[in-house]
């Protein structure tokens, strides 16, 4: 039973990942990433990481993907040009990817970690549930927890500054920018 769930979730995760990199429309890529994230949440559940699985579904597949969908809807999915800056890039890149996978596998399987071939020790009752994670976060890892909260605040403020309209700024000092830049900053008729 566990093997069936693992293989279904693994095929979902891998299929979602391949969908992300092969879809031409970014909107479909985002949808494929949502499939990938849900499959990964199932894998986390198999590894008795209930809190991480719940956070994956709620935070990632919920909040972050909504952000992506909004930006894709705003920017619009433009087709990519087939121009290759490096010759034979389409053929070299898969070779490099396969080489990386082989290298990582050799590095992991060649490491003399004996417990790799086991299921891990028997999980005690409540392994990885929110209570245990919360206790670790507030006792042992309090400083990283607070630092990550400050980082989230900084990222939110930075994103607002980055994505806000610049008309007010340019209106105060219009001489510093060329007229074409002012023209380009108005969001009325977008074209890519």
């Amino acid at each position, binding site marked *: 039973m566990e093997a069936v769930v693992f293989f279904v979730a*693994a095929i979902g995760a891998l299929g979602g990942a391949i969908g992300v*990199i092969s879809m031409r429309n970014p909107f479909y890529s985002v949808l494929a990433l949502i499939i990938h994230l849900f499959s990964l949440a199932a894998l986390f559940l198999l590894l008795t*990481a209930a809190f991480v699985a719940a956070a994956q579904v709620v935070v990632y597949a919920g909040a972050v993907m909504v952000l*992506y969908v909004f930006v894709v809807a705003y920017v619009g999915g433009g087709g990519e040009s087939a121009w290759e800056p490096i010759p034979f890039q389409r053929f070299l890149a898969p070779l490099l990817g396969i080489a990386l996978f082989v290298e990582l596998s050799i590095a*992991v399987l060649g490491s003399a970690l004996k417990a790799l071939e086991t299921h891990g020790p028997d999980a005690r009752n409540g392994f990885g549930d929110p209570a245990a994670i919360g206790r670790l976060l507030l006792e*042992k890892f309090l400083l990283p927890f607070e630092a990550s909260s400050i980082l989230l605040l900084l990222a939110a403020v930075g994103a607002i500054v980055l994505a806000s309209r610049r008309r007010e700024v340019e209106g105060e000092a219009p001489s510093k920018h060329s007229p074409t830049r002012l023209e380009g900053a108005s969001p009325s008729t977008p074209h890519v």
Partner: protein
Amino acid sequence: MNITWYIVLSSLLFATGVLGILIRRSPMVILLCLELMLNAGNLALVAFSRMVGNEQGQVFAVIVMVIAACEVVVGLGLIVAIFRRRLPLNVDDLRELRG
């Protein structure tokens, strides 16, 4: 299932993310591929935490999720800023910083 299966799946997903970054040119899809790579790292962290029988790896995975959310927010803000300035949304055309 052995932990080895999870680790091999994680390295496969990581290689897929690297492949996507190598072949795609839209910055949005490149951000999605970064998410793939971070999630592959998360899977390996949780699998190793199960292997050791200690929840600290799962805390690490939660922190990685926070970092990934920050990266997404800043990256999408950059994409919106690029779009507002009418620059092409193509990483091969945005090479002014290369000197």
